[in-house]
């Protein structure tokens, strides 16, 4: 145990965030409701501090800690920094909404920070057990956060559904992991990879485990045929929590897929490639077609998420370095777009009114031309219209799939993206060509408006200059996956 200090330094960002989360929880007890702003700023400070630690301790080298249970590689650092940025943006967006609904409490910030620790552990997990514990930590916080608005029957129902299906998915994942342990005799991802490299132990057992692991991951990502919970949970949760569920945890889920399938089970890539192909195609098809029928904007974005996950899987199923890097690019683009999309819904909500239906967006251009323009960018980006970030993300993912030889599937995906453009552009039509039903002025603090502007314009700027983000993704993948 002499090297415990080097272990602790490797995991310093996690320890820092964990400590601050507990401090915030305790501090909240001594604060009056009027002083809650302090909690908000302290949480932002925590994120900034964690980002500083992560950036300062960054090296291109891969370092392991806690007997190989924990890894700090460029991919982990890059995804963690993105997680901090996404969470910080989410805090800015949700503050006003929460304070209007009596949820602006210390527990919210503490639970989000605990959830973030879970995500960070998932990103850095190098052992089946570590990954599982991180996932449970994240999921448990999310269930509680969805139910935090406890007098709202819809939120309680959503929390219940999320909890039951999430538990089922965790069970599947664990079962798959136990099969892998049976087949390879190790829980460590690197050792599993090595032992598979030396010769398949028992092929049928390996594949049974793989099926369960992929099913568990697909549940968490929300890929078809494991997508049933996504629309209900997105719809039922308070919008601030939907924003959380839909955005940053996907970064951690992506990292978990990379750790399990790519770093651990690359030898059986042919097998998981086939499974991912089916899920990718179905996700894109069902997500885009079902979204057309939605009148609720949160449900529409839920189906849009399913189709985005399909595109993400397109990059992963290519099973090439290029494919993984473009998937990472896609997932970060997705997080930024989702934050902006839900940010707009939060902006249009006010005391006693939830902007939920597509009709609430009618005539937004007359009410606020600037916000309508921002929403236009977000919708264009989600649809994949050049020159936005969404276009470039889809382009790189499909390019990687094309290089891997999936020509027919790429054509199919492009056609489906065109179908998807229908419902995104319908939002634009509602905003610009319809008469507003609701003429009350938009009530939102300046911080939130500025954040939304920066976020949406960022989608445009990053779409024009994607090199930086793409460079980070390629760098992270190149140094993390041997």
């Amino acid at each position: 145990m002499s090297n415990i200090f080097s272990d602790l330094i490797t995991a310093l960002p996690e320890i820092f965030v964990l400590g601050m989360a507990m401090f915030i929880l305790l501090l909240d007890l001594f604060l009056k409701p009027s002083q809650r702003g302090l909690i908000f700023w302290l949480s932002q400070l925590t994120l900034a501090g964690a980002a500083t630690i992560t950036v300062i301790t960054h090296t291109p080298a891969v370092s392991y800690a806690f007997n190989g249970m924990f890894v700090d590689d460029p991919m982990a650092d890059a995804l963690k920094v993105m997680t901090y940025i996404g969470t910080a943006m989410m805090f800015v967006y949700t503050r006003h909404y929460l304070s209007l609904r009596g949820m602006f409490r210390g527990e919210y910030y503490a639970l989000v920070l605990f959830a973030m620790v879970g995500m960070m552990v998932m990103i850095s997990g190098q052992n089946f057990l570590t990954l599982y514990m991180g996932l449970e930590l994240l999921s448990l916080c999310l269930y509680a956060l969805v139910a935090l608005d406890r007098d709202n029957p819809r939120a309680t129902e959503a929390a219940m559904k999320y909890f039951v299906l999430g538990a089922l998915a965790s069970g599947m994942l664990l079962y798959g992991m136990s099969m892998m342990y049976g087949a390879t005799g190790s829980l460590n991802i690197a050792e599993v990879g090595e032992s598979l490299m030396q010769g398949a132990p028992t092929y049928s057992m390996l594949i049974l485990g793989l099926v369960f692991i992929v099913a568990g991951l697909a549940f968490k990502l929300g890929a078809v045929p494991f997508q049933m919970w996504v629309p209900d949970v997105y719809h039922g949760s308070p919008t601030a929590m939907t924003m959380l569920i839909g955005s940053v945890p996907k970064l951690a889920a992506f990292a978990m897929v990379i750790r399990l399938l790519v770093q651990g089970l690359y030898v059986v890539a042919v097998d998981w490639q086939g499974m991912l192909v089916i899920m990718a195609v179905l996700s894109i098809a069902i997500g885009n077609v079902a979204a057309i029928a939605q009148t609720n904007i949160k449900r529409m974005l839920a189906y849009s998420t399913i189709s985005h996950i399909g595109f993400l899987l397109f990059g992963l199923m290519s099973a090439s370095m290029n494919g993984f890097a473009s998937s990472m690019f896609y997932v970060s683009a997705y997080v930024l777009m989702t934050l902006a999309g839900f940010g707009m819904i939060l902006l249009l909500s006010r005391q006693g009114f939830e902007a939920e239906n597509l009709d609430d967006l009618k005539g937004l251009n007359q009410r606020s031309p600037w916000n309508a323009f921002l929403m236009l960018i977000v919708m264009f980006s989600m649809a994949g219209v050049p020159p936005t970030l969404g276009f470039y993300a889809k382009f790189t993912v499909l390019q990687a799939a094309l290089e891997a030889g999936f020509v027919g599937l790429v054509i199919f995906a492009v056609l489906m993206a065109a179908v998807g453009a229908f419902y995104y552009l319908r939002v634009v039509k509602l905003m610009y060509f319809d008469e507003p039903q609701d003429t009350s002025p938009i009530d939102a603090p300046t911080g939130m408006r500025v954040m939304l502007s920066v976020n949406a314009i960022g989608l445009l700027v990053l779409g024009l200059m994607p090199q930086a983000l793409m460079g980070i993704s390629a760098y992270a993948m190149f140094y993390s996956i041997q």
Partner: protein
Amino acid sequence: MMFQDYIFYIFAAILLFAGLRVITARNPVHAALFLVLAFFTAAGIWLLLEAEFLAIVLVLVYVGAVMVLFLFVVMMLDINLDKLREGFWEYLPMAGFIGVLMAAEMVMILGSKNFGVDRVGAPPPKPADYSNTAELGRVLYSDYLLTFELAAVVLLVAIIAAIALTLRDRKDTKFIDPADQVKVKRADRIRMVSMPAFKEPLEQDAADNTEPKDKA
């Protein structure tokens, strides 16, 4: 077959029976009691596997604490069984088909073909002074330190979540903060009013008072 094998099969049969009854028992209290039986026999099987510590912990924690608490909760709830079982026959064909399919797959893979003694090999026997508990403690605090700590964090989150979801500031509560009670000063409770012990009756009052007396 050795004596231990007989014990194993008896335990396994009881375990399977109890497990089946947990999901088929009509009365939830019976189901909970069958779950206790299932845990107990599982602990017996673990003892056969020489995992003494885990066996005892299973009985102490699950049977002794979790299930007893669970039984209390089940007894307090007013569960409408007919409503719960609604649609049981409707879903049975599909669910039964999937269940049988999964069981068949698992038998195919988990059978002795892949997990037989010839493939996996029996673990070497441990010396008499081998302490299962000490070994578990050693790996828990060294090799698995990180996951152990993370489990602690998960439990902490569970506590926070449970309190955040159930604690309410009730307006009608009569709770008094003892600290506030102790800090009370005399001035907070009584107001001193300066009053003469004897007050001269006013002329008018005196006249009023005397009048009835005269009448009487």
